[in-house]
């Protein structure tokens, strides 16, 4: 019998406190977002798939085609195509492809890039009907809104 009435008292009290908490929460405004119509602003720390950064002066890519990212990638999902035009000292980038189906979003490519030509995008609405949709031509995306994401 010991604790019979104190259990009753404390139990009832804590139940009433609980009801008070939920009632107060009910009157507060909702915190969720009506998704398709409203979206949250994505934090700069968000790690989406990689995206080429555009050069502010030329509008092209900062990439010097060194291939460090492709070599650093543990899943081998980056392939870089480049060519050296006649009379030029530098190679220029002709294609930068990302096989996002194999990417593990580790970010080693971003860290290894010597010219900071790669950044994370903030795109999270990724859905498609075929895997080919995720073989991304990053150079083609550059300048179509893709490159402006830094």
């Amino acid at each position, binding site marked *: 019998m010991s604790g019979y009435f104190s259990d*009753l008292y404390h139990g009832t009290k804590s139940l009433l406190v*609980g*009801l008070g*908490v*939920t009632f107060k929460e009910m009157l507060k405004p*909702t*915190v969720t977002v*009506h998704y398709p119509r409203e979206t949250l602003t994505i934090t700069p720390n968000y790690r989406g798939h990689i995206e080429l950064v555009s050069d502010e002066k030329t509008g092209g890519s900062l990439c010097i085609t060194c291939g460090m990212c492709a070599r650093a990638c543990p899943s081998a999902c980056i392939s870089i195509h480049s060519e050296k035009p006649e009379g030029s000292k530098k190679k220029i980038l002709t294609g930068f492809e990302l096989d996002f189906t194999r990417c593990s979003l580790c970010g080693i490519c971003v860290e290894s890039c010597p010219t900071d030509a790669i950044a994370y995008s903030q795109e999270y609405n990724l859905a498609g009907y075929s895997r080919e949709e995720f073989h991304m031509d990053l150079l083609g995306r550059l300048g179509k809104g893709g490159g402006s994401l830094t």
Partner: protein
Amino acid sequence: MDTAFLPPELLRMLIAALFVVTVVFVNALFMVYAERKIAGHIQRRPGPYEVGWHGILQTLVDGIKLMTKELVIPRDANRMLFRVAPLLAFTPVVMPFLVLPFSENLTIIDMNIGLIFILAMASLNVMAILVAGWSSNNKYGLFGAMRSVAQNIAYEIPILLSLLSVVLITNSFSMRTIVEAQISGLWFCLLQPLAFIIYLIAALAETNRAPFDMPEAESELTAGFHTEYSGMGFGLFFLGEYTNMFIVSSVAVAVFLGGWSGLPLPMDAWTGAFWFLLKVYILMFIMIWVRWTYPRVRFDQLMNLSWKYLIPFALLNLIVTAVIVKL
């Protein structure tokens, strides 16, 4: 009107039947929506929002979906009992509407055993759950059914005892007499506060709602007794649950909260139903509020609450009431 063709008593029956069916369905539609909305806001989200203005048509659409779905019967189930159980769950919860005193004139029948009739019908609900769980031939279903039986045995006693202490005062089981006793005197929730609280707690357990939803217990028994039910079979259980909420709230209002009495309205004999329904829906709001506040109790806690707290206090209350009435 040709009274020989349609005698007034038959007309009254037809209107009553129509009224009951309407109340049952409209109440369920409204309560499911209210429950989801209130649950949403307690969890700081908007609840149903997409179908109609603020999701107002959501339950209607859900209802249509349920009706168009196939009723799947498991191969090893007892086919006849499996089919009968949803009807058995739905019929007894509709019957108590016959004696509920909505207002002075809006009472279908005023039986002199009204309260006992309601309690008898309410206890039949357990049978339906047992039949459903048993005939499903499913371990979760059987567990849910067994829990429901144990729980209802434990909680029917405090309900009876708490209502009995009111009956001792009014000397009548007729719902109308009980309400009229409160109009001329005090509401019984003031005269019998302990019985009122015990009734509310036990009624919550009687409707199998959280925190006493042991028979369903999503996280333990998938869906308990209605695990195997789909389509309108499940729909009838669902309808039964919300109608049951309405019934226990109505009994609480009629017995403890003064029934149709309230501030005077024009045409009092009819419009008293407004006060009755207002009180019923306030009680139902409290039931929803409680559901979304408390976690589910464990089975031993459930039994402890009934046998160690509710029943002794209800007995004590009954004895004290009996002594005072006798004096």
